[in-house]
C-alpha cells in the first residue's frame, strides 16, 4: 500500500485528464485556493473600462469627422472591439500562465514533491484561461452593448436621438456603472466613484473634440 502512495511520477495520471474532470465544485475550490476572483474582478473592470473608453473615443472621432457612413462606424467599432477582445485574451493568458507556473514550481520546491495530482496544478492550468476569457470578453461585450444603437439605426429602427450620440451616451453610462461598481468594491461612495469615471470619459471626449 505504501508503494501506491509513493507512486513514481511517471505512473500518475496526466494533468490534462485531471483538467478535463474539473467539476463546478472543484472550480470553486480552484478559485478559492488561487485567489482568482479578485484578479478576475479587477481585470473585468479595468479592461471593460478600457474597451468602453476606446469605443467612445472612436465614436467621438467619427462624430467630429461628420459625414461618415453608419456602416463604416459599425465596422470600425466592431473591429476595434474584436481587437480589444483578442488582445485581452492573449495578453492575460500569457502573463497569467507564466505567473501560475512560477508559483506552482515555487510551491513544489517548498513541498519537495510534485503537485501534479493536486488542485494547485489544476488551478495553474485552468485559471489563466478563465482570467484571459474575462479579460478579453469584458471589452468585447461592453463594446457590443455600446454599438447596439448603431445596429438598431442601421436596421431601420427609429431612435429618439441620433444613433452616434446615443451610442456615446450608452458608453458614458457603462463607464459610470463600472466606476460605481469599483467604488462599491473599494468601499468608497459609489456615486463619487462613478462620477469620477465619467469625468475621465468627458475629458477624453473633450480632447478628441479639440483635436477634431
Amino acid at each position, binding site marked *: *500500500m505504501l508503494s*501506491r*502512495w509513493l507512486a513514481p511520477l511517471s505512473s500518475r495520471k496526466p494533468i490534462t485528464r485531471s483538467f478535463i474532470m474539473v467539476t463546478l465544485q472543484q472550480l470553486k*475550490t480552484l478559485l*478559492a*485556493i*488561487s*485567489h482568482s476572483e479578485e484578479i478576475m474582478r479587477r481585470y473585468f473592470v479595468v479592461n471593460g473600462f478600457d474597451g468602453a473608453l476606446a469605443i467612445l473615443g472612436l465614436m467621438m472621432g467619427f462624430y467630429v469627422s461628420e459625414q461618415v457612413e453608419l456602416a463604416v462606424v459599425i465596422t470600425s467599432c466592431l473591429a476595434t472591439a474584436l481587437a480589444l477582445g483578442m488582445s485581452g485574451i492573449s495578453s492575460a493568458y500569457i502573463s497569467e500562465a507564466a505567473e501560475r507556473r512560477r508559483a506552482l514550481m*515555487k*510551491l513544489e520546491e*517548498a*513541498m519537495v*514533491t510534485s*503537485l501534479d*495530482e*493536486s*488542485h*494547485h496544478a489544476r488551478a495553474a492550468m485552468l485559471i489563466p484561461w478563465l482570467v484571459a476569457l474575462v479579460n478579453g470578453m469584458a471589452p468585447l461585450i461592453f463594446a457590443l452593448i455600446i454599438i447596439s444603437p448603431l445596429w438598431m439605426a442601421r436596421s431601420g429602427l427609429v431612435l429618439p436621438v441620433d444613433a452616434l450620440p446615443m451610442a456615446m451616451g450608452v458608453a458614458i453610462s457603462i463607464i459610470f456603472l463600472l466606476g460605481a461598481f469599483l467604488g462599491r468594491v473599494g468601499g468608497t461612495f459609489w456615486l463619487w466613484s462613478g462620477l469620477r469615471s465619467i469625468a475621465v470619459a468627458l475629458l477624453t471626449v473633450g480632447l478628441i473634440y479639440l483635436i477634431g
Partner: protein
Amino acid sequence: MSRVQRVILDVLKPHQPNVLDFARAIAAIGDDYRVDVRVIEVDENTETLQVEIEGSDIDFEAVNVAISENGASLHSIDVVSVASTTE
C-alpha cells in the same frame, strides 16, 4: 476482516487551502468521520499538521487522495487503531 477506526497522520501542506477547508475535505469522505487537525509548524510556504481521523471504517486510500488533491503530502502514519470484525 478489519476496520481502520483511527489514524494520526503527519502531513505537510501548502497554506492554501486553509486548515479548515483541508479538514472539511477529509471529513467529507465519510459519513461519520471526525477530523482533528493540529498545526505543528508554519513556515513561509508550508504548514506541518497532525491530522487525527476517527470513524467506524476509514477509507485510507480516499483520505490519501484527498490529501494529495489539496496539495499536501503524507509524511508518516503515526498512530493507527484497527478493529477486527466477524463478518
